[in-house]
């Protein structure tokens, strides 16, 4: 329902993020490296500070007041985060250090309990190294084979190859929701249908999804969905693995230690149920509470509004960069979220990024942990501008103005 006030007042939102009022090299910070990490609203920073100032205690263990209170807050946070991604039950939400650890956990479990020699694992040509390397390791351990669903020259997943790459031997298909390097949004419905048809599981790397659009894991119809707190306006060092209960039950524990056990004797240990089975050791309580605060903040803003605002930014950025001329887009996907990768013709991305930094504009340059994507485009790296809910059209104008100055300098 629309109210009289604008649903999404970006200037008011910017005031929630203290770092955005910083200056860099004497200029107002223009932060366009959100695919690397997003900035944190004050509510997240306050939540972490309050936890350590007033609530610190170990969870799941003590009989004392603080521990009980902490456990309650911790598990309430799990429920909040489950709701944020549409998970049917908080039992299916496992806390990890981040997306990378979440993928490693699943890859390790598959290597132990699922993969056999001759099986196949499918990754895509758009993946971040974090969704390639753990699967290579699992393949090496088990004799399974890694297969790649390629991307098109435009940087979209080539779904016309699904029928050929996915076979009866495919056990899992590992695909990013949104490419960190190019911003391509994957056609997950098609991928999931093809995986279902051959009886393969689907893992979605959602690191670049949760910050930008509403996510409903049940609607996606996938088996695993992973994301990082720090890219979703939450703290670093906390991530989430959601998995269907049947799958999580089937996979063995990832690490052993406290909290993940039922009974321990020197002869034999039995493991705790979900999600504790996968959460050995003292968890990152402040991280979990901080992430829940971020999720509450995003829910109040409304992820549909965030998505609408960012879609406008991305379209504006592409149009302004086109108008600038002399810009080579790396990836021109059908559907794009958050990130735009490009090169100023004749210039190495490092030169572009270094001078932009001097102008207070933070972009990422290099391979974006996606070397196969760079190789496919025949480039050693790109300049990547990636947007978040607090960015403005003015900042995109500042980027384009900065690029003009870069060109003048090297011209």
């Amino acid at each position: 329902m629309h109210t009289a006030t604008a649903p999404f007042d970006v200037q008011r939102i910017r005031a929630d993020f203290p770092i955005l009022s910083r200056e860099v090299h004497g200029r107002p910070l223009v932060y366009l490296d959100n695919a690397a990490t997003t900035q944190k609203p004050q509510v997240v920073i306050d939540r972490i500070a309050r936890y350590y100032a007033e609530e610190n205690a170990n969870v799941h263990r003590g009989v004392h007041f603080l521990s009980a209170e902490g456990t309650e807050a911790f598990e309430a946070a799990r429920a909040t985060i489950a709701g944020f991604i549409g998970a049917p039950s908080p039992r299916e939400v496992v806390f990890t250090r981040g997306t990378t650890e979440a993928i490693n956990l699943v890859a390790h479990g598959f290597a132990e309990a699922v993969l056999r020699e001759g099986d196949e694992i499918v990754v895509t040509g758009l993946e971040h190294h974090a969704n390639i390397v753990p699967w290579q390791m699992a393949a090496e351990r088990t004799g399974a084979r890694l297969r790649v669903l390629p991307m098109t020259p435009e940087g979209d997943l080539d779904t016309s190859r699904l029928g050929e790459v996915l076979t009866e031997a495919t056990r899992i298909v590992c695909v990013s929701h949104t490419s960190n390097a190019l911003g391509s949004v994957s056609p997950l419905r098609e991928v999931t249908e093809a995986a279902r048809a051959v009886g393969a599981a689907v893992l979605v790397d959602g690191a670049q999804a949760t910050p930008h659009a509403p996510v409903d894991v049940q609607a996606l119809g996938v088996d695993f969905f992973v994301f990082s707190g720090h890219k979703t306006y939450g703290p670093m060092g906390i991530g989430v693995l959601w998995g269907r209960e049947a799958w999580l039950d089937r996979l063995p524990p990832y690490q052993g230690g406290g909290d993940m056990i039922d009974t321990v004797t020197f002869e034999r240990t039995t493991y705790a149920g979900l999600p504790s089975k996968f959460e050995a050791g003292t968890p990152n309580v402040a991280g979990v509470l901080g992430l829940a605060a971020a999720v509450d903040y995003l829910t109040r803003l409304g992820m549909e509004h965030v998505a609408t605002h960012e879609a406008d930014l991305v379209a504006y950025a592409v149009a302004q960069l086109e108008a600038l001329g002399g810009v080579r887009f790396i990836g021109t996907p059908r559907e794009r979220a958050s990130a735009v990768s490009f090169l100023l013709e004749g210039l190495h991305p490092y030169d572009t990024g270094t001078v932009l930094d001097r102008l207070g504009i933070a972009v990422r340059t290099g391979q974006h942990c996606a070397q196969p994507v760079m190789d496919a485009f025949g480039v050693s790296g790109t300049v990547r501008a990636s947007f978040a809910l607090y960015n403005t059209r003015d900042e995109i104008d500042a980027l384009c103005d900065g690029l003009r100055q870069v060109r003048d300098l090297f011209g």
Partner: protein
Amino acid sequence: MPTELDARQQAIVDEFAMLDDWMLRYQHLIEHARSMPELPEADRTDDALVRGCQSRVWIQTRDDDGRFHLAADSEAQIVRGLASLLVRALDGLPPRTVAEADLWFVREAGLSEHLSPNRANGLDAMIRRIRQEAAAASVDRTA
């Protein structure tokens, strides 16, 4: 009496000190980059590649009768410029001098923190490589 190495470093520092605007300093660095001859393709070998840089950097060195010579190249102009300053400071000096050189001009000219804040510029990696090669060359001569 300042050493040859110190005199060369001072000259670089003085040049940058005259430029009070960072844009002019970049321009100066880029001019340096442009005036340095390109490494022939054949010299851009894997062995010459310096790891630890965001742009690829190649350094070729040779010991020529007690004089240490170096040539460098990079895909990025700023990195080429930084490399050219290392060549200017060190080329033709005795290998032992190069191996033990205190390259204070990097700090004094504000190259590391002001012009290229990113560790990815590879300046440290380039210097490490040059020192290693020079140390090896000076050992070869005394052996």
